[in-house]
């Protein structure tokens, strides 16, 4: 870059003239002339990026405004036309019991999911690896992986068929003389339904990730351990688990990083008013007050709060992962 190409036309005219800056500009110019196609390629992506990802950020200002949809000819123009109110919506939000509730629910549901579900795929991967019969191993893996490709609506339909008021489980309970259980409407049970269905969908996918990591472990380590008299438990404890550790840590960091932003579509599909107290999470609440009750400013304020905290968590998670494991998501 610093040495100008001798055969370039520009430099042949006067190779000594011009400051470092203008030389740099000339070399940039020749780069652009040579590679303009690359810039053209970026255009469609940048178009989508600006319109659909960055333009909404302009709309975030209504979190600090008293947004009136009819303040101008169009709802979009009304954004600029509305009055600034400073932090009023945030104060209102942080003082409300609803905010505390949805924050608590978000953290509780996602924390319980990590607590109950995080170890399962690790166990599955280790156990699958112990199944000698290749066909049977593949069969089990294929079956537990299937639900990952189902949408939440489809999963809701499947579990509705099992757990609904007239689902097979309740028909069994009533035929045995028991009381119907309202799995989707009982506050004491609903979170368990969320956790179980999350596991049903995700365990297979995560198992595949850990299986890939197990494949990377050096087989000779096991051979050596066997010679030294290590039994299977020792081998799993001192070879497989340490080999999986970087992946385990990475997955855990990511899970914590995304603790505020996961589970939205699942809750949206599964919940109903009777369980709002235990199931309403930040994003479902934003959706309901924003597009349901048309309280745009308050919803945007909560959305912005969520976005900022989530941003800090995700960037933090990525930094921790980069520092400790040398691996990052970007």
């Amino acid at each position, binding site marked *: 870059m610093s040495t100008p190409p001798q055969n370039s036309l520009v430099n042949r005219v006067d190779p000594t003239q011009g400051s470092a800056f203008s030389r740099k500009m000339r070399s940039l110019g020749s780069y652009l002339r040579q590679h303009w196609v690359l810039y053209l390629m970026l255009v469609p992506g940048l178009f989508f990026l600006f*319109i659909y990802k960055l333009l909404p950020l302009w709309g975030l200002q209504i979190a600090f405004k008293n947004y009136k949809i009819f303040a101008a000819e169009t709802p979009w123009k009304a954004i600029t036309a509305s009055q600034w109110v400073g932090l009023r919506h945030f104060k209102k939000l942080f003082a409300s019991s609803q905010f505390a509730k949805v924050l608590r629910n978000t953290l509780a549901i996602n924390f319980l999911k990590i607590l109950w579900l995080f170890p399962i795929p690790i166990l599955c991967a280790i*156990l699958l690896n*112990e199944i000698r019969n290749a066909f049977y191993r593949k069969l089990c893996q294929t079956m*537990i992986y*299937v639900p990952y490709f189902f949408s939440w609506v489809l999963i809701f339909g499947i579990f509705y068929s099992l757990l609904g008021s007239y689902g*097979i489980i309740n028909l069994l309970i009533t035929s045995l003389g028991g009381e119907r259980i309202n799995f989707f409407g009982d506050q004491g049970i609903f979170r368990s339904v969320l956790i179980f269905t999350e596991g049903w969908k995700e365990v297979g996918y995560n198992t595949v990730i850990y299986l890939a990591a197990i494949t990377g472990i050096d087989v000779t380590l096991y051979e050596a351990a066997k010679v030294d008299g290590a039994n299977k438990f020792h081998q799993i404890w001192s070879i497989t688990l340490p080999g999986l550790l970087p992946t385990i840590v990475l997955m855990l960091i990511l899970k914590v990083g995304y603790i505020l932003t996961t589970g939205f579509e699942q809750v949206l599909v599964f919940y109903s008013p009777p369980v709002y107290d235990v199931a309403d999470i930040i994003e479902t609440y934003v959706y309901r007050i924003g597009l349901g009750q048309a309280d745009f400013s308050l919803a945007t304020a909560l959305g912005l709060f969520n976005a900022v905290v989530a941003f800090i968590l995700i960037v933090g998670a990525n930094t921790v992962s980069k520092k400790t494991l040398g691996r990052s998501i970007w």
Partner: protein
Amino acid sequence: MAKKVKSKGIAMDASEKFVTGFAYVLMTIFALIAILPCLHVASKSISGGTYVASGSVWFWPRGFQLETMEYILFETQFFQALKNSLIVTSVGTLISVIVSITTAYPLSKPSFKGRKVVTLLYVFSMVFFGGIVPAYMVVQMLGILDTYAAMILPFAIVQFNMFIIKNYFEGLPETVEESARIDGAGDFTVLTRIVIPMSTPVIATVTLLYAINYWNNYFHAMMYVQSTSMKTLQVYLYDLINSGSSFLENLASGGYTGEGVHTGLSVNITAEGITASAVTLSIIPIVLLYPLVQRFLIKGITIGSVKG
């Protein structure tokens, strides 16, 4: 060869036997937990109404009938919803894959000027989401509410998928590209003739990720689309499940015996059966594509998804 003799020669010790046995038992249970609910819904969808209502259909159909399936297919909006989902998924995936490739390629060139700034924009937009309300306002402002475009364009580029392709491109050997350039090929030719053919596995993976995204999405299709004729399969299915339950509950509360049989229709058509049939019909496309999906996604998880 020596290894083989050795592993055959040494008998499995107790710990190994235990772990292997435990593995077979537990993994069988897990596989059954994954598959039995699907089998139940599928069985229910083609079982006779009285068997369904009495709770005697478990994992195999009883009193085989196809009337419920016919009802779903011809008396409801199923085909319209299927058509909408197919349009959104195919057009959306095509746009997404092309745009992701053309974005990933320049950003994968270390010498590309402006690379850092543009990459940073994509990373930032990936980790900072402005929220549902402003996103909705943009779609509304553009006047594309209630169109296919509203279900496609805002999600045309998933940054994470684009980065998977970019990471893969970065790992390709420079030499092949260079020799093509010496032969006079420009950037576009190098991308379409050399880079893309060398990257088919990762492109297949990302194509599937996008297709699954579009196909499975419920929220966006629900939020941006109002008219019945524009509903996608997921929205259709959700509405059907919810109306199916109220349908049955209304019948039950109206002095109905609770056997779940609609009097105006064939005895085989029950609310439970209707839900089960719609769910089963929605599972079929996924099961048909599953071998393909599994092949590329298992591979895909290991390529480029996380920067090494």
